[in-house]
């Protein structure tokens, strides 16, 4: 291949166009219907709204984690001056911009605080010295204030990344890359702090007595898995639809696969560290949370995490031939997305069982499916809306040529 090839590589479709419009339309419609159905089921059933809010939170966190993973890795690409990833970076920026949608979808949770969080029950706090101690942090007003801050930081960063990058599509000004790099450096620090405390607030405080310092890292590890699974699947899907057929090559899939593999291991490392330390010290304050997850009905969920979130994908993604094979990579990407959903379910639902006593079977039913479809539809619609009028790759990024001709050693 000679030097003029990068230019030829660009000869392809790289906008969503009509597809975007239909995704917005149908995705949005399906999404609303799904959520309304799930909510209706909650209304009909006895105490169903409590269950609905837990199901809602599970799916909310699942999709939020994809966007947060994307936000983090967009920043990391800028700050490390990455070359290989330019052709997939716009997709990450678009996924990250979906935090705006997630901020809107956070509103229903506000109405569900009483169902979700034990510490909002004034009568419970009155009899619980530990909750009284935590009241300066765990109270509704401060909780909502923090949520506003979290979303402000994420939306600010995500829109800045997307806007500046799109601006570069027009002007080709290389100084934009430098500015993005600078903002990313401290932006990542803000990201780390906000994401950690968001995971403390929204997930860890479901059991307000329990605590784990690694929780934020655990949530981050899951988000990274979610991002790379989504991104791999998204790229393959877009190529199937005849877009970006030349820009994204086997080499990029190989790298996405490596990241998916690496974060699958990283997740296992963090999960093991948390589990083993609490198992070993065996203190009543901290083992209750784990006990709820390793006894029926959640035992099988926990075991499925060990085997299907780590062992199987570890061997599945180990070989470079698999990472470089689109169909196999697509399979494992979807697999990991499913397992990431199970992971979030595992974080949230045992607390529902604990609080509302539905012992016997892990709660899963039509409501979960409606809710998942609802969120999925809205998330896809949101993505398509952000993509409207934008190229799916940063067309004038100074490192685009490097990315287009990139090869793994």
């Amino acid at each position, binding site marked *: 291949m000679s030097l003029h090839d990068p230019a030829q590589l660009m000869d392809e479709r790289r906008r969503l166009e009509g597809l975007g419009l239909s995704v917005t339309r149908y995705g949005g419609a399906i999404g609303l219907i799904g959520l309304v159905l799930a909510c209706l089921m909650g209304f009909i059933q006895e105490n169903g709204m409590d269950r609905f809010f837990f199901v809602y939170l599970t799916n909310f966190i699942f999709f939020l984690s994809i966007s947060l993973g994307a936000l983090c890795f967009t920043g990391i690409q800028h700050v490390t001056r990455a070359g290989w990833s330019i052709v997939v970076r716009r997709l990450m920026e678009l996924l990250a911009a979906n935090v705006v949608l997630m901020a809107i979808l956070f509103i229903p949770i506000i109405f569900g605080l009483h169902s979700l969080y034990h510490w909002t029950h004034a009568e419970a706090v009155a009899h619980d010295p530990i909750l009284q101690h935590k009241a300066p942090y765990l109270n509704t007003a401060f909780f909502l204030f923090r949520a506003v801050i979290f979303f402000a930081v994420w939306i600010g960063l995500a829109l800045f990344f997307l806007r500046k990058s799109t601006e570069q599509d027009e002007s080709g000004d290389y100084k934009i890359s430098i500015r993005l790099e600078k903002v990313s450096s401290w932006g990542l620090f803000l990201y780390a702090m906000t994401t950690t405390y968001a995971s403390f607030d929204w997930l860890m405080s479901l059991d307000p007595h329990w605590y784990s310092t690694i929780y934020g890292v655990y949530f981050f590890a899951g988000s990274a898995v979610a991002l790379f699974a989504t991104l791999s699947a998204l790229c393959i899907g877009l190529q199937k639809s005849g877009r970006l057929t030349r820009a994204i090559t086997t080499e990029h899939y190989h790298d996405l696969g490596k990241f998916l593999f690496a974060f699958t291991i990283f997740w296992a490392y963090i999960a*093991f560290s948390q*589990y*083993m330390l609490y*198992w*070993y010290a*065996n203190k009543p304050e901290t083992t209750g949370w784990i006990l709820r997850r390793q006894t029926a009905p959640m035992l099988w969920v926990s075991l499925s995490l060990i085997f299907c979130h780590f062992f199987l994908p570890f061997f599945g993604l*180990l070989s470079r031939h698999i990472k470089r094979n689109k169909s196999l990579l697509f399979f494992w990407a979807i697999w990991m997305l499913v397992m990431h959903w199970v992971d979030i379910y595992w974080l949230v639902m045992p607390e529902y069982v604990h609080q509302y006593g539905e012992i016997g079977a892990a709660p899963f039913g039509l409501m979960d499916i409606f809710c998942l479809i609802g969120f999925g539809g809205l998330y896809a619609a949101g993505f398509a809306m952000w993509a409207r009028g934008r190229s799916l790759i940063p067309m004038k990024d100074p490192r685009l040529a490097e990315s287009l001709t990139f090869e793994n*050693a």
Partner: protein
Amino acid sequence: MSETNKQLYGYLVEFDNVDGLVNAAEKVRDAGYSDWDCHSPFPIHGMDDAMGIKPTVIPWIVLCAGITGCTAALAMQWWMNAIDYPTIISGKPFFSLPANIPIIFELTVLFSALTAVGSLFALNGLPQLYHPLFTVEKFARATDDRFFLVIEASDPRFDLEKTRQLLESCNGLSVEKVED
């Protein structure tokens, strides 16, 4: 060693840049030679293709070693702590899988790493302190800044004249005979 005892080892051609060597390698590959090699001070990207080298089996050997290490570590800890010499410590079960994971991991890595290096040496045939090429004075620069291609006389296609012509057509700095 007297003159008459010397055997022909092969032809050596020298280059002073990467491109020359890779182009020559492609030519030699296409001519169908099998007993030949390139020598360079550093690994050159694209050389595997140019020489038609097949992927090595090292990763598979290492995978087997890793699985062996993993199993051995698990079996060792189980047998020693739960079967042969059970002791009660901090109320843990004799066979405590979570507490066994670190050593399982470490031995997996240890077995794999030792095997990776061992199989590297074995497959490369190292250590091999003498080699006919070391008798060529300018070959010393193969570890410095020069690039060499050698076709061995043991190659079935080796022919004193034709091989020489092929190598001369590669535009190297020089072509010379190497004797053992």
